[in-house]
């Protein structure tokens, strides 16, 4: 039994924190929301990520990566979440996880490990106990959208993909898309280069400028079918959930720290507001949700390799609890700061924007909660 961070993991986390501290990420998050002269485009943090070796976190050493595990990747993404840094790892890392399981993709790996090329994962949700088909996030509305299909060209071993993926994290500017498509109704891994004819990427900004998103349309675009096992295709979805969970937990940490600090310094009726039970109890509620989220990150991080059969449940639990935690923490952050917390100049609204958008991406927090029920109902029936 050992659920503690190793020395290497502590170093990895500290290095990430130090690297990110060199950038004014919160200023950038606000400036990127401005219109007119105050607007500044988000800084490109990919060179920093490359220097730190993050693109290759999940790629094995033989292909130039660090050969680390899901939990290590989650630690780095968590640090990004603490300071709302827009580092395109949510798209890149699950893509490299699929490619790493596909022997016929091995020659793609080295530039992806160094970061010379950047991949984006095309999110596809595997079936559950009620829905027997693969689905993707819809461009609008509540109903899940059908997954793209792929047709193999008999002559040269190539294939073409047709379909749409909405709100794909880190799609704008990606060199390669990696995901799942249906061939004769069966899921297979596919990779499509972004400069291939038939590929269009529409950049979409929704409420949180730090989150790069794109609608990806594949119109009979030339693709390579990957020989990754179906298990790997399923796992990528859950890995994306775990990464988003970790990012959210990082954001909750900051929301709590800042709120607690303010509650100690701000006085009303002659006392620090943190001495009032009403304020203290809502901050301990943030802590309760944070600790639950953290514990589930350990579950997800451990089960990814240690107990793959439980990884879907672990990742869904982590996403669900940390998603609720971020909702609660960002609203508490605003409330504890009083009216100031709801002003443009304050950081609280940036965390609130992050919470609002995250909750609705990658199947949504509610989708993860449903997945928890689905996994346990299936286990209890068996």
């Amino acid at each position, binding site marked *: *039994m050992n659920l503690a961070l190793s020395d290497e993991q502590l170093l990895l986390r500290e290095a990430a924190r130090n690297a990110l501290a060199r950038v004014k990420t919160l200023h950038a998050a606000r400036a990127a929301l401005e219109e007119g002269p105050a607007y500044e485009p988000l800084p490109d943090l990919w060179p920093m990520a490359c220097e730190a070796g993050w693109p290759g976190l999940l790629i094995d050493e033989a292909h130039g990566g660090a050969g680390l595990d899901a939990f290590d990747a989650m630690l780095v993404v968590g640090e990004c979440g603490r300071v709302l840094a827009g580092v395109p790892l949510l798209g890149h890392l699950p893509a490299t996880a699929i490619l790493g399981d596909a022997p016929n993709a091995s020659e793609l790996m080295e530039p992806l490990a160094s970061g010379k090329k950047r991949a984006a994962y095309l999110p596809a949700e595997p079936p559950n106990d009620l829905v027997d088909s693969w689905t993707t996030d819809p461009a609008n509305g509540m109903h899940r959208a059908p997954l793209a299909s792929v047709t193999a060209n008999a002559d040269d071993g190539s294939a073409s993909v047709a379909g749409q993926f909405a709100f794909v994290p880190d799609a704008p500017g990606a060199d390669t898309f990696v995901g799942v498509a249906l061939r004769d109704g069966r899921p297979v891994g596919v990779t499509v280069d972004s400069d291939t004819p038939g590929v269009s990427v529409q950049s979409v900004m929704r409420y949180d400028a730090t989150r790069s998103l794109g609608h990806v349309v594949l119109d009979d675009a030339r693709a390579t079918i990957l020989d990754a096992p179906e298990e790997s295709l399923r796992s990528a979805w859950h890995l994306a959930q775990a990464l988003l969970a970790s990012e959210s937990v990082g954001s909750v940490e900051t929301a709590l720290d800042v709120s607690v600090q303010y509650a100690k310094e701000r006085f009303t009726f002659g006392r620090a507001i943190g001495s009032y039970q009403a304020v203290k109890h809502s901050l*301990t509620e943030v802590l309760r949700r944070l600790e*639950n989220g953290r514990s589930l990150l350990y579950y997800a991080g*451990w089960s990814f390799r240690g107990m793959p059969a439980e990884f879907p449940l672990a990742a869904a639990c982590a996403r669900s609890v940390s998603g609720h935690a971020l909702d609660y923490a960002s609203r508490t952050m605003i409330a504890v700061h009083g009216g100031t917390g709801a002003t443009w100049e304050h950081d609280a609204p940036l965390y609130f924007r992050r919470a609002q958008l995250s909750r609705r991406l990658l199947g949504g927090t509610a989708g993860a909660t449903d997945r*928890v029920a689905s996994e346990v109902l299936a286990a209890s029936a068996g």
Partner: protein
Amino acid sequence: MDLDDTPQQAEYRANVRAWLQEHSAKAPVLTGPDALRDEDEIIAARRRWQGELAEGGLAGVTWPAEYGGRGLGPIEQVICNQEISRAKVPGILDVIGVGMLGPTIIAHGSEEQKERYLEPMLHGEEVWCQLFSEPAAGSDLAAVQTRATQLDDSSWRLTGQKVWTTNAQFASYGLLLARTDASVPKHNGLTMFIVPMDAPGVTVRGLRQISGEAEFNEVFFDDVQLDADANVGAIGSGWGTALTTLMFERITLGLGGEGLGYDPLRFARAIGAYESARTDSDVRQRLGDILAELTAVRFSGYRMLTGLQRGQIPGPEAGLAKVTIVNSGMAGGDLIADVLGPDALAKESEWTYMISFIPGLKSAGGTEEILRNTIGERVLGLPPEPRLDKGIPFEDLRAKEKEAAKT
């Protein structure tokens, strides 16, 4: 990062499992058609079984060997608990004694006390109860009013009332927190005592709860005589001794593993049996939230264990798990009753007891509100509420409180 046994732990687990295989036929049957029904018979059988477990080294796993324990760590305690649960046999009867009160005596008791009390406690020959809470001292435990007065011959006279006392109806001894000096501020005037429950003047009365069952007791002390050496630790140092017990309480709860028996699979099984519920998105959201939180508590427990193995003592944040368990359990009871309808509340329903039990649990081991205060102050470092009892002699404090209640 792993959840695996080390080779030594695996060996220990195999030994425990082998012992249980060999001896589990002697365990009392508490469920099913052959279950014992008579309360006295159940207690007697469970005491005998605790003796067997102690002989086999499955009780007092973390106790030092010189007091009959195995001198092992918390992880072995968890392994032992897991194996006992896997073997589907009852664990020890006196969890409070062996888990909390024995370790307190080991830490603060005299050599004579350790010699006299520990072994019969471990073997279930003498069951113990914890006499801390009072009608006016729960969250504010240091406000106990039960009075112990020392007479000229150095013996003690004890007068007062305790409440929420589990196992008092068949306990041989109790560990009791009493006020020995009311002229000093409240934390300073307390002393811990060992009280024989059959002493003249001790009255135990069952306290019925919402379910109608009496799991707790009220205990009255009417001029009870205690020997001069009945105190555990120095006179006036009772608060520090009580804190030791409460720390072991957190560890015992943490090592309990699956919380209070609110098993996620049990909730899921009940819901899954109803097709209309299993496929209802609102039910699934509620169920998913409950299951995710209970799963989090399981892994918080493993994190705490990791810390314990490294010699870290669980802090007040361990109380957050209790908050989660109670609230998720409550939500689970609500959800199941919503799905099953009024039948969930029938006398013979397997859910009525849980639904009746949880509201009180919200206040057990410190109310949710006091837990949040403590955690907010000790863990988050938030300033305390202004308090009116600091540095005031206890006897004056009572007078002040009475005065304030009048206005």
